[in-house]
């Protein structure tokens, strides 16, 4: 039932989402449109309150400006019932807005971070000062076997497949961020962070490190290459040689 309510609300705000994040950043993962719809919902809600507050704010400044005619301000304590409701009604309405935002945010969060759907494949991402190492499972689709394909600053995945990632760090905190996936996760030395994504669009985009990691933080970028099944098979057939990226 919760999912039904979620889908209903998401459906309302999804079209609007195309004009926000998606106007600059492609929607390339299965959960990217969930985040975009949530952002659209929050934009509409806070936009409504902002317009209301600004309208009241500028109206009051204009209406009650000192005209220099010697007239006096009203003596109002703000504790009168008929005036106080101008505060209490918006107060109640904000609580309702907050409840909707909390519900939608938690549903989005649960889907992306709290659950781990069945994976078609698993990649290992090893971050270090200041580069990304990507371990692909290779043709046998198993990590830690001889046909693993290790690349440097270039991650190859196949469109439409669900991936698990194992995110590691060799030294300090890093953050694996793929804006087109709307995905972000800190890498912590000594831990293996697990998560998932499902690419939905072929293309090549930026991976950024999103956690300050030292002097070279500003160059710690990589590329994610989302390929069609044929392209991906062709790439995989090249084996583990010559896979060091150009950058």
């Amino acid at each position, binding site marked *: 039932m919760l999912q039904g309510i979620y889908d209903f609300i998401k459906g309302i705000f999804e079209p609007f989402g195309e004009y926000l994040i998606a106007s600059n950043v492609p929607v390339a993962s299965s959960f990217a449109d969930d985040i975009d719809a949530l952002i659209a919902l929050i934009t509409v809600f806070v936009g409504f309150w902002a317009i209301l507050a600004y309208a009241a704010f500028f109206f009051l400044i204009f209406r009650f400006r000192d005209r220099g005619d010697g007239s006096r301000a009203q003596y*109002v304590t703000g504790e009168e019932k008929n005036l106080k409701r101008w505060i209490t009604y918006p107060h109640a309405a904000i609580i309702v807005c907050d409840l909707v935002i909390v519900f939608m945010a*938690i549903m989005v969060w649960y889907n992306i971070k709290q659950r781990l759907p069945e994976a078609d494949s698993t990649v290992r991402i090893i971050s270090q000062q200041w580069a990304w190492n990507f371990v692909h499972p290779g043709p046998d689709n198993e990590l830690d076997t001889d046909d693993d394909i290790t690349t440097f600053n270039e991650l190859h995945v196949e469109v439409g497949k669900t991936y698990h990632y194992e995110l590691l760090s060799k030294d300090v905190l890093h953050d694996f961020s793929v804006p087109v996936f709307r995905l972000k996760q800190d890498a912590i030395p000594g*831990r293996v962070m697990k998560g998932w994504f499902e690419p939905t669009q072929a293309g090549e985009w930026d991976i950024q490190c999103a956690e300050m990691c030292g002097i070279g933080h500003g160059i710690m970028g990589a590329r994610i290459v989302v390929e069609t099944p044929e392209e991906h098979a062709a790439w995989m057939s090249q084996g583990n040689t010559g896979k060091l990226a150009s950058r």
Partner: protein
Amino acid sequence: MAEAGTAVETHGAHGAHDHGHHEQSFLSKYIFSTDHKIIGLQYMFTGIVMALIGGYMSYAFRMQLAFPGESVPGYGVVSQGEYNSLVTNHGTIMIFWVAMPVLIAAFGNFLIPLMIGADDMVFPRINRLSYQIFLISAIILIASFFVPGGGFGGAWTAYPPLSANAEYNLTPLGSTLWLVAVALEFVAFLLGGINFITTLMNSRAPGMKMHDIPMVLWMIVIASVLFMASVGPLIAGAVMLFMDQVVGTGYFDPNRGGDPILWQHLFWFFGHPEVYVVLLPAMGIVADIITTFSRKKLFNYKLILYTAFATGIISFFVWAHHQFVAGIDPRMANVFTITTLIISIPIAEMLFLYIATLYGGRIRLATPMLWALSFIAEFLIGGITGIFLGASGSDIYFHDTYFVLAHFHYTFFPIAIIGFFAGITYWFPKMFGRMLNERLGKIHFWGTIISFNFIFIPLFVLGTAGQHRRIYNFQNFPDLAGLQDLRVLATTALLVMLAFQAVFLFNFVVSMFKGKPAGKNPWQSNTLEWTADSPPPHGNWPEGLPNCYRGPYEYSVPGREEDYWPQDVPPDTAPAE
């Protein structure tokens, strides 16, 4: 404690300060003074100098972002390491060495005794010590730029293992000096906070009840309580980090049984209340200004006070919204999303109450009022954009992007800069006995406000485009390289804004010596500081301390000839028929 005892007893008869009425040397009057007004000004001038340094840093790194790799006039080529040091220390300075000293220490020290009708702080020598420690901390921070390896560049949040280990951050001395400076700054503010709270609670003028205290003092004292309650864990964390750096312990080192996330919890347990530590004094300054310049009582004083209490308490339960994607248990994100959205309620309500205060007023758009109103208008943007970040789902995308950066500049700029300008333009006559030039004040206001929005609205757009923070050259990222026009626009606006500050400095210095004499109460305000001479002499009211008969915002009371009714005017003699 001897000093404290005397000062408390001397309310009304100022024995402790009798020694202060004879001529003093320059050193004892301005440098080693225990006078709260001088200490307040010391904090303010130090804060202004630090703001200029912080502004210069922003100039250097914004130029690098707009024109990557080119030599910045007045700085030179910004290397990667220098870029990191500049952004790290820009943040550290603007929060700890500008917002806090100016908003809490400068205005707190100057205003608390004057607004409650006391001759000085309860602990004048602790007060002096507080400033001296603060000054040393500032000097240490500046010095950290000139040691081998350069200044610390691990972001103002100083997450270990990067901050803990010189092999990673490559600034062995800079990072330790940075940490020591921050810790000393905390010591200074702990001392100051004790003083503020004790003074407000013990030295109020006879007749001044809890609800007669001007809102700005309440806000400063609530902020001091929040600071004192939240800083303990961070000081513990700072000691551990210091040990990790210097002795080689492994509190935050996962290879030796430590946990880097621990630091994040300690840091943000302090770090989020810290936002309200600086916000509340600015809100208080704005409250006092909008009442004076709309000739209105504050709209529901008690409710505003309660929203401030509520905000302060809730601010202790929201810290992990900074860590949603940091590797904490994902279930925790749900709890902290709820608490974070809850804190939006009292803050929104407080802003509504401020806006409602304008209702029925006679609004005079003098410079302090323009600043106060612009605080509300700009902070509103900072507030609503926070919802995107407090909601865990959308924070996955926005975390550590320029959206965050623009969001907190829309909160901290109104707080630290607009709040300061509002306060200084309002209390300048009291501080120096002369008026600021109104025309220059308005030129400075419009130049600053308009250019401020042109800096940070482009940065919001860059944030939604997925641009991350603390990256010294976006040409390294193919998807972002094309957005250079927006970066140049933001940098250009910054240059304009910095240029307009010259107008302020000119106005400030010239008016200090040549401005129109202000008289005691140029704004026709109610609170007690306006009954003292401008500037108030040592001991504030040599002829005898005032009494208090009513609340601070009795403007436009029906049946009275004047539209203001100062707190010290006795009721029986008050009607001036």
